[in-house]
C-alpha cells in the first residue's frame, strides 16, 4: 500500500522529460534497487555544495542557478524529493501569522503555479483555495488579523459566514462555527514533483545533482567553509548549504567545529481515504480547522486529513538511528482525537473507507519559525531547515531569500525573524529541543494571543536576583533563554486569575503595569535588565576606536565617560544592531545591545574587526547584573548610597562612571534608562548583585521605590517614541527613516559603513518614515488592542504597518509605532516620504479588520510630558534634570 501511495503522490514523469540529468545519475535507476554504480564521479571542487535533495535544497539550487551561479553541486543521500518532501500533504497556504512567512508563501505559490510551464514537469498544481474555520470568537479575531495582513499584500482574502462556508464546501458541519477565512488563491501541489521540477530547471542551468551521496562532514578552516567530505570523496567549496531537513542538526554537529542548528523531529500523521462514492472534486478548497487541530484536503476523489495533536511524539532525539522514515509505524490510537475532530467537522465521511495512515516526521524549531542564514561561526556555511511542517509553503520563497543571501550577501527582505543567528548554543541542547518541540507542535493550532510565552525550556538563564524577584510576585517571560520580569503581581491579587487569562482585549495586568509606570514617572522603579547583551572592546592602541568608528554611525571619539547611542549599520545603512556604547577609557569601550543580539552582533563584529591580537572583543553579558533605576527619585537613591553628587552638573545625561553603591565598589553607572525617563542603569559585577539590590531597595523605601517589569518599560519607551531593535528597527531601516539623524555623524571625518546610503537619503529623502500614532476613537476597555503588524491606512490607502504598540498611561491612549510609505496611486511605485506627507494625512489603524482613527506624529509629545513634569516638580521638591 505504501508503495502504491508513493507512486500516486508523486508521478514519475520528470524522468522522461529530462534525459540529460538521467544520464548524469544512472540509467537503471527505475529498476534496480541495490547499490548502483555512480556513473558520474564527483567534481573535485565547486563554488557551492548543497546537501539535501528535498524541496529546500532544490529550491536553493534553482534560485542560485537563476541568479547566474552555475558551479553548484547538490548532494542527496538517497533519492531526490524523498523524506518529508515526499510525504508532504501538498498544501500551499499563505495564511501564516508572521509577515515574512506570508511573503515566502506568496512567492512560493506564484513560483509553483508557473513551474510546470517552465520545466515541463507536471506538478499537479491546483488553485483550490483554503478555508480556515473559527469555532470561537477569539479564533475569528486571529483570522481577521491574518486577513487584514493578506489583503494589504494584495492576496485576496475574505472573512466569511458559516453559511458561506457550506456553499464552498458542502461536507462541512457548520453548526459550531462562528465564521471563517477564505483565501481563494491557496493551492494544492505535489511537493515531490515541485522539488523534481526545481531540480530539473536547476540541472538545465548547470547545477550538478548527485543522488546516493551522503555528506559525512563539512571542513572549516579559520572560520570559513573549505570543503565537504562525502562517502564518495571530497569536494572543495566556498559555500555549503545545509538543507538536510531532519538531519540538519546532526550534520551541523558532524564536523570538528559544530554549527548549531536547533531543529528536532516529531512524528506527524495524516490519513488518506479511498474516493467517496461521488468522488470529491479536485477543486474543493482545503479546510483548516485549528480549533479541531486538523486540516482536510481533497485527494484523489477522497480526502487527506492530518493535524497537530496536543501530545506530539518527538523522535530522533538521539540523532539518526535505526529508524528509517519509511519504516515508521502508523499509530491509530495516537491519531484517534484527530479522527474524532475530522468526523465532527465532516460527519458525512463516516462511511468513507480508509486507505492509509501516513506517518511523516516533520522538523520543528524552538520558536515555530524556520531557520535560514549563515552560521555565526563558519562563514560560507548556510542553513535552510526546520520548516515546522510548512516546508512546501515556504520552499520557494525561502530558497529565493537564501540564494540572494549567498549571492548578494543579504536577502531582499528582512529575514531576521528566521535568521539562524537568533539562536545560540543554548537552544541546541537535545533535552531543550525535545521538550520545546513538544510544546511547539501543538502551538501550530493553538490560539496565539498577544504576549504569549513558551512554557518549556524556561529558567535557563537567570539573573542572580531571580529568586528575590520571584518571591516578590514577579511574572516572567523569556528572551533568548533569559528570564525577564513582565510585571510584579502585588500581594493579595488573584494570582491564578492573572496567569490564566489570555485575551486580545484589555489584559488583566493593566492596572498593575499602570501603577508601575506611575511609580517610574513620579518616584523610582527598579527593573532587572541583566539580559541585555554586553560586549567589551579594547585594544593596546587606537585600533578599537578606529574599528568602531568604521562600524558605527555615530561619533565614538568622545571624552572618556560619555555614552553614545548609535546604530551598527550595514552597507545599505540599515540597522544590524542598535546600541549604547560607553567609552570606558581611551582604548576601551563597553557596548550594550538588545538581548537577542548576542550571537548576531558577535558574528557581525568578529567578521569585520581586523584580525589583530591587540584588539580584544569580549562577551561580558554574564559578568554583570544590570539594574535600571527609572524615575525622578533615582538620583536621590543613588547619591545617598554612594555619597556622591548625582545631579545633572556632576552626572549629566549619557554619562558613565564607576562608583561605589553601598559597600560594593566598581559599579558601572550610566545615566541612561532605555525609556526616555530620567534615571540610571547600574552594571554590577554579579557577586555584588544581591547586595546592591538590597541596598537600593532599602534606601529607596523612603522615596517610594518598587520593582517594575518590562511591560512598564515598554509602555514608557513607546509613548516616548523610542524605537527598539528587533521590533521597530531592522536591517532594512536606516537612522534617517526613523528620525535619528542626530545619531549619525556624517561628518565625523572617518568613513563608516552605510555612510553613502545615508548621505544619499539625506539629500534625496527617505522612502519610509517611522511614525507614532495615537489611537483616537479606541476604547481601551471595550476594543481590541493593537499588537504589532497592524496595517496603517492614510486617507483610506494602505501605507505601511505598525511595528509595536502600547497603552500610554500618560496620554491615556494607545500608541502605535510604525512605518509610513508613500506608494504612487497609479503605479504603486515607492515615493519619497516627506514630513508634509506624514502630517497632511488622515490615518487609520486596522486591528483585525476594524479601523481606528489615529493621529500621526513624527516627534514625541515633549511639551505634554514637560508640562506634567513641571507639575510633578512642584510636588517632588524641585528635581531638575534637563
Amino acid at each position, binding site marked *: *500500500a505504501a508503495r502504491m501511495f508513493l507512486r500516486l503522490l508523486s508521478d514519475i514523469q520528470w524522468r522522461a522529460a529530462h534525459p540529460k540529468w538521467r544520464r548524469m545519475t544512472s540509467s537503471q535507476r527505475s529498476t534496480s534497487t541495490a547499490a548502483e554504480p555512480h556513473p558520474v564521479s564527483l567534481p573535485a571542487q565547486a563554488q557551492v555544495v548543497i546537501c539535501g535533495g528535498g524541496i529546500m535544497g532544490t529550491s536553493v539550487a534553482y534560485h542560485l542557478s537563476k541568479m547566474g551561479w552555475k558551479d553548484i553541486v547538490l548532494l542527496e543521500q538517497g533519492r531526490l524529493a524523498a523524506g518529508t518532501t515526499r510525504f508532504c500533504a501538498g498544501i500551499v497556504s499563505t495564511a501564516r501569522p508572521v509577515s515574512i512567512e506570508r511573503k515566502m508563501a506568496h512567492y512560493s505559490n506564484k513560483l509553483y503555479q508557473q513551474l510546470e510551464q517552465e520545466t515541463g514537469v507536471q506538478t499537479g498544481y491546483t488553485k483550490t483555495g483554503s478555508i480556515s474555520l473559527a469555532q470561537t470568537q477569539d479564533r475569528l479575531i486571529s483570522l481577521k488579523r491574518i486577513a487584514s495582513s493578506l489583503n494589504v499584500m494584495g492576496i485576496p482574502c475574505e472573512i466569511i459566514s458559516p453559511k458561506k462556508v457550506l456553499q464552498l464546501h458542502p461536507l462541512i458541519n457548520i453548526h459550531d462555527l462562528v465564521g471563517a477565512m477564505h483565501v481563494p488563491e491557496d493551492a494544492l501541489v505535489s511537493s515531490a514533483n515541485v522539488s523534481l521540477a526545481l531540480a530539473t530547471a536547476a540541472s538545465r542551468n548547470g547545477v550538478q545533482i548527485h543522488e546516493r551521496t551522503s555528506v559525512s562532514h563539512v571542513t572549516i578552516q579559520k572560520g570559513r567553509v573549505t570543503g565537504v567530505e562525502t562517502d564518495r570523496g571530497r569536494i572543495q567549496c566556498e559555500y555549503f548549504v545545509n538543507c538536510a531537513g531532519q538531519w540538519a542538526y546532526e550534520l551541523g554537529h558532524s564536523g570538528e567545529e559544530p554549527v548549531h542548528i536547533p531543529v528536532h523531529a516529531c512524528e506527524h500523521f495524516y*490519513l488518506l*481515504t479511498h474516493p467517496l462514492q461521488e468522488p470529491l472534486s479536485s477543486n474543493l478548497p482545503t479546510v483548516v480547522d485549528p480549533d479541531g487541530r486538523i486540516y482536510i484536503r481533497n485527494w484523489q476523489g477522497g480526502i487527506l486529513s492530518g493535524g497537530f495533536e496536543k501530545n506530539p511524539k518527538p523522535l530522533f532525539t538521539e540523532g539518526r538511528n535505526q529508524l528509517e522514515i519509511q519504516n515508521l*509505524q*502508523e*499509530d*491509530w*490510537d495516537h*491519531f*484517534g482525537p484527530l*479522527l*474524532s475532530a*475530522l*468526523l465532527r467537522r465532516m460527519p458525512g*465521511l*463516516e*462511511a*468513507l*473507507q*480508509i*486507505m*492509509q*495512515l501516513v506517518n511523516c516526521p516533520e522538523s520543528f524549531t524552538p520558536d515555530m519559525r524556520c531557520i535560514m542564514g549563515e552560521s555565526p561561526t563558519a562563514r560560507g556555511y548556510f542553513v535552510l531547515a526546520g520548516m515546522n511542517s510548512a516546508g512546501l509553503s515556504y520552499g520557494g520563497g525561502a530558497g529565493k531569500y537564501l540564494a540572494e543571501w549567498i549571492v548578494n550577501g543579504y536577502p531582499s527582505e528582512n529575514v531576521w525573524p528566521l535568521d539562524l543567528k537568533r539562536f545560540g548554543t543554548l537552544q541546541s541542547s537535545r533535552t531543550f529541543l525535545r521538550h520545546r518541540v513538544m510544546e511547539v507542535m501543538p502551538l501550530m493550532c493553538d490560539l496565539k494571543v498577544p504576549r504569549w510565552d513558551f512554557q518549556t525550556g524556561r529558567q535557563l538563564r537567570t539573573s542572580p536576583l531571580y529568586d528575590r524577584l520571584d518571591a516578590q510576585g514577579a511574572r516572567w517571560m523569556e528572551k533568548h533563554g533569559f528570564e525577564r520580569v513582565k510585571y510584579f503581581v502585588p500581594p493579595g491579587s488573584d494570582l491564578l486569575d492573572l496567569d490564566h487569562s489570555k485575551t486580545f482585549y484589555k489584559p488583566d495586568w493593566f492596572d498593575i503595569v499602570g501603577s508601575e509606570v506611575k511609580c517610574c514617572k513620579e518616584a523610582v522603579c527598579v527593573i532587572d535588565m541583566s539580559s541585555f547583551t554586553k560586549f567589551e572592546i579594547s585594544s593596546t592602541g587606537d585600533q578599537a576606536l578606529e574599528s568602531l568608528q568604521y562600524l558605527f554611525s555615530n561619533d565614538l571619539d568622545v571624552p572618556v565617560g560619555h555614552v553614545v547611542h548609535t546604530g551598527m549599520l550595514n552597507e545599505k545603512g540599515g540597522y544590524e544592531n542598535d546600541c549604547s556604547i560607553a567609552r570606558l577609557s581611551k582604548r576601551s569601550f563597553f557596548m550594550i545591545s538588545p538581548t537577542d543580539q548576542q550571537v548576531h552582533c558577535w558574528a557581525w563584529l568578529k567578521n569585520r574587526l581586523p584580525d589583530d591580537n591587540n584588539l580584544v572583543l569580549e562577551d561580558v553579558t554574564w559578568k554583570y547584573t544590570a539594574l535600571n533605576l527609572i524615575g525622578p527619585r533615582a538620583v536621590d537613591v543613588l547619591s545617598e548610597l554612594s555619597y556622591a553628587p548625582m545631579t545633572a552638573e556632576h552626572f549629566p545625561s549619557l554619562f558613565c562612571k564607576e562608583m561605589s553603591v553601598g559597600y560594593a565598589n566598581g559599579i558601572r553607572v550610566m545615566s541612561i534608562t532605555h525609556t526616555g525617563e530620567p534615571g540610571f542603569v547600574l552594571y554590577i559585577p554579579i557577586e555584588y548583585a544581591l547586595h546592591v539590590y538590597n541596598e537600593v531597595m532599602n534606601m529607596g523605601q523612603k522615596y517610594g521605590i518598587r520593582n517594575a517589569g518590562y511591560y512598564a518599560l515598554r509602555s514608557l519607551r513607546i509613548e516616548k517614541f523610542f524605537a527598539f531593535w528587533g521590533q521597530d528597527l531592522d536591517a532594512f531601516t536606516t537612522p534617517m527613516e526613523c528620525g535619528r539623524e542626530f545619531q549619525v555623524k556624517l561628518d565625523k571625518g572617518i568613513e563608516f559603513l552605510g555612510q553613502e546610503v545615508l548621505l544619499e537619503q539625506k539629500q534625496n529623502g527617505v522612502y519610509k518614515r517611522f511614525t507614532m500614532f495615537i489611537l483616537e476613537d479606541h476604547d481601551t476597555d471595550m476594543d481590541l488592542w493593537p499588537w504589532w503588524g497592524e496595517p496603517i491606512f492614510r486617507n483610506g490607502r494602505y501605507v505601511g504597518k505598525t511595528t509595536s504598540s502600547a497603552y500610554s498611561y500618560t496620554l491615556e491612549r494607545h500608541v502605535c509605532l510604525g512605518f509610513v510609505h508613500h506608494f504612487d496611486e497609479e503605479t504603486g511605485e515607492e515615493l519619497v516620504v516627506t514630513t508634509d506627507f506624514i502630517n497632511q494625512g488622515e490615518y487609520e489603524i486596522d486591528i483585525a479588520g476594524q479601523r481606528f482613527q489615529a493621529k500621526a506624529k513624527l516627534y514625541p509629545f515633549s511639551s505634554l510630558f514637560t508640562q506634567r513634569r513641571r507639575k510633578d516638580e512642584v510636588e517632588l521638591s524641585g528635581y531638575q534634570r534637563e
Partner: protein
Amino acid sequence: FYLTPPQVNSILKANEYSFKVPEFDGKNVSSVLGFDSNQLPANAPIEDRRSAATCLQTRGMLLGVFDGHAGCACAQAVSERLFYYIAVSLLPHETLLEIENAVENGRALLPILQWHKHPNDYFSKEASKLYFNSLRTYWQELIDLNSGETTDVREALINAFKRLDNDISLEAQVGDPNSFLNYLVLQVAFSGSTACVAHVDGVDLHIANTGDSRAMLGVQEEDGSWSAVNLSYDHNAQNEHEVERVKMEHPKSEEKNLVKQDRLLGLLMPFRAFGDVKFKWSIELQKRVVESGPDQLNDNEYTKFIPPNYHTPPYLTAEPEVIHHKLRPQDKFLVLATDGLWETMHRQDVARIVGEYLTGVHHQQPIAVGGYKVTLGQMHGLLTERRARISSVFEDQNAATHLIRHAVGNNEFGTVDHERLSKMLSLPEELARMYRDDITIIVVQFNSHVIGAY
C-alpha cells in the same frame, strides 16, 4: 438502582493496600519491587484472608492468600500464624537459641516478621498468648532436633504448614479454660481454610499451596506480549493427581464414595485444607470434643454432622505442594489469588491485564488497516473503545484493584462495562454469593534489574 463511577471506585478501593520495598541509597536491592493487594467480599463477613510480611531474621518475603470456608475463623488464624511457623522453620539454630533465651530471661524478643497489613487486616488479641505458646513449643522442638543442616525452604514450608495444622487440631482437643478462647479454638478447628503462600528470596521463588487458590507468574515475552505460568496446582476434583492421591490413601472399598459431585466425600471442594477437623478426626474424637464443648458448638448442626461414609480418617491434609521457580528477568510479576478470581478470569487474561497495567503501556495490538476495508466511522468506534479501556487503567493505583475491576466488570469483549460493574457491586448481601465468590488478590512485582544481575 445504579452506582456512580465514584461509588464503584470507593467500593473497589475500600480494601486496597500497596507496599513498596524501601530503597536504600536510591536503590532497591530486593528482587521484589513491592506488591498490591485487595479483597472484594461476597460473603458477609468475608471469609478470605491475606497476609504479607518480610522475614527479618532470614532473607525473603512471605505473601499468602487464604480462602476460608464454613466461616472465617480458620482462615483468620492461619493468616495470623502461618508465617510465624514458616519463619521459625527457616531460622538457623543459633537464632532459635537466641530467641528462646530472650523469652526465658524476659528480654526483648528479636522481631521475626515485619507485617505489611491493611488496617482492616486484624490480629486476634485474645488468642495471641495461646498462639505464642504453641509457636514456642514448636521452636523448642526445633532446637532439640538440631540437625545442624542448613534449612531447606521447601522442607521448612511443608513442616510449617503441617505443624500449624497440627497445633490447630491439638488446641481444639485440649481446649482452654477461658471460654471465649475455648470456643475460638474450636471454631478455628471446625472451619477450614486453603492457603497459597509465596516465599521470595532473591531469585528463589517458592510457592506452597494447599487447596484451590492459585499462584501464577506473569512473563513478558520478547515481543512484549504477556503469558502466564502456573506455579501451583489446584487441590480439587479437577486435578487427577489429587483424586488419585486421595484414593491411594484409603481402602479400595471406599473409592466410589471418596469423591462425589466433585467434592471430597460429597461435601468439601478443596482436597487439602487447614482446620476441617471433621475430615481429619476420628468419629469418636469429634463426638467427644463436641459434647464436652460449649453449648454453641453443641447446637450447631454442622459441627455435629458426621460426613457420610466416614471410615478411615483422616481424609484431608494441610500438607502443601511446593513448587520452586528460579526467577528470570522476563518474570515480571506474581499473582496470588483465591478461586473467586480464577472462576471468572482465565490466567492468560490475568497476565495480560496486570502486565499492561504494570508496564503502563496498554499493549494492545496496534491497529493496522492493511488490506481490510475499514471506514472512518468504524475506526472511530474502535479507537473510542480502546481509549475507554486505557482510561480504566488510569483509574486504579493498585494492580489488584484493577484486576478485580476486570474480574467483576468485564463484558464479553474483555472491556470493563461500567453498568455491569455497578450491578455486580450493588447486589444485596444475600444474593452476592450466588453471582460471585470472595476475591482476594496479591500482585507481587519483581525487580528485573536485580534479578538480571544474579
